[in-house]
């Protein structure tokens, strides 16, 4: 699943998982740098998702019946 398709919750899940890996101290330095990049990316997606909803009321009136 590409980043664009991630929902807030999915991105948050990945951020949390990446953080846990970073905190586990089991990563090589390269992996840790990659993980830090990933974490930052997921963080940005989360922030973006929070802002994406648009404040708007749309009223969908029933179409006229044409029987």
């Amino acid at each position: 699943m590409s980043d664009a398709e991630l929902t807030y919750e999915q991105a948050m899940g990945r951020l949390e998982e990446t953080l846990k890996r970073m905190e586990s101290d089991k990563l090589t330095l390269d992996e840790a740098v990659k993980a830090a990049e990933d974490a930052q990316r997921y963080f940005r997606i989360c922030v973006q998702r929070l802002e994406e909803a648009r404040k708007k009321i749309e009223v969908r009136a029933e179409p006229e019946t044409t029987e």
Partner: protein
Amino acid sequence: MPTPPSGGLAAGLSTGEEAKPYTVTELANEIRRELRPLTALLLKGEVSGMKQGSKGHYSFVIRDSQSLINAFIYADDARRVTTLPEDGQVFIFRGRVDYWTQYGSLRFIVDQVEFDDVGKLRARLEELKRRLESEGAFAPERKRRLPFLPRSVAILTSPTGAVIHDLQETIWDRYPNMGIVVYPVQVQGAGAPMSVARALRRCNQERLADVIVLARGGGSFEEMYAFNTELVVRAILDSRLPVVTALGHTSDRTVADLVGDAECRTPTEAGARVVPKKADLLAGLHERQRRMEREINRRFSREADRLNRAQADIARLSPIRQLERRELAVRDLQRRMHAALNLRLSVAQATLTATGGRERIQRLLANRLADQARRLEGQRRRLVALSPDSVLTRGYSITRDAATGAILRSAAEARVDQGISIQLGSGKLAGRVEGVEA
């Protein structure tokens, strides 16, 4: 206006004089007038042949075991009645009898419909529930999960009233920029089940929102009837978007509540259920940002520590340091050697002192010094004897040119009348050259 025929039909036809025949319209109007007292009647019967007309009216038949009467509900009344009659059900109808002159037919015009027997209706409801239960419609595993954060929320409710306002307020209080799509529906009356079912289908087709809230402000069993109809229940079951019900405080849960994916009572509760608090999400996000930064810093400082330790190890193990260490060892040896030598020297000196050698050396040195002093004095005297002052004391003099101070060493250097100065052993003379004999 013709009077009704008083005699037999044969008599009337034969005389033709005393009774003028009705026109059709006259008779139709007469029938109509005669029926007028049959108004605000209550009529109990079973419904069959229910048909909806294009203008929103309904036509059907009300019957009992022996008789039937055609019935009609105008569109305006259809929107007001609490429930729409369904085939096979017995209702109590309120209305009037009307004769439609242009069709020559008699209709019972219904303006209100009431369940004949709520108990029986409940029994039918229980039957519907049992049927749905056996289909697994209430099973928790069938329920769709509500989105954690919808992009927009669809609200199916009456466009007027407090429910829509409360929902909107709750949603925007929790999530200020959440999108809301309102599908106005009839929440009670005969048209309600169809209106709700149609809106549910539209929500799924249009996909403008990720979750549906079906709401109304509660009501009596009759008022809530739409939410117990199979039409609405099936539409909820068929929805791919999760449906949250908020049908007010009622004594009974409706079947819509049972098949919905989340059941709330009030609009406020439903609003809180479908939309998370943005502030909470942001707080959680920032907490994770802090963790992320802490981890990055921790990792880098740990790597820096490791590097520092490695650097220290490299320094410790390098050949230069090993050389330095050896040099230090050599210096140490040197120092010890000097110390040992000094010790030997002082021992020797002490031995020398003890044997009186020191005094002998000093005496010898003193003699050498006195000898040197004597030689110096002799040389000094010779130097004094050679100085011009001592020559002058012996009677010689030095003649200088008075103007320049230059010493005159031969007569040829002088000329007559030149000013001269003569330095004697003691004092000076000033003179003038009288003659030159070169």
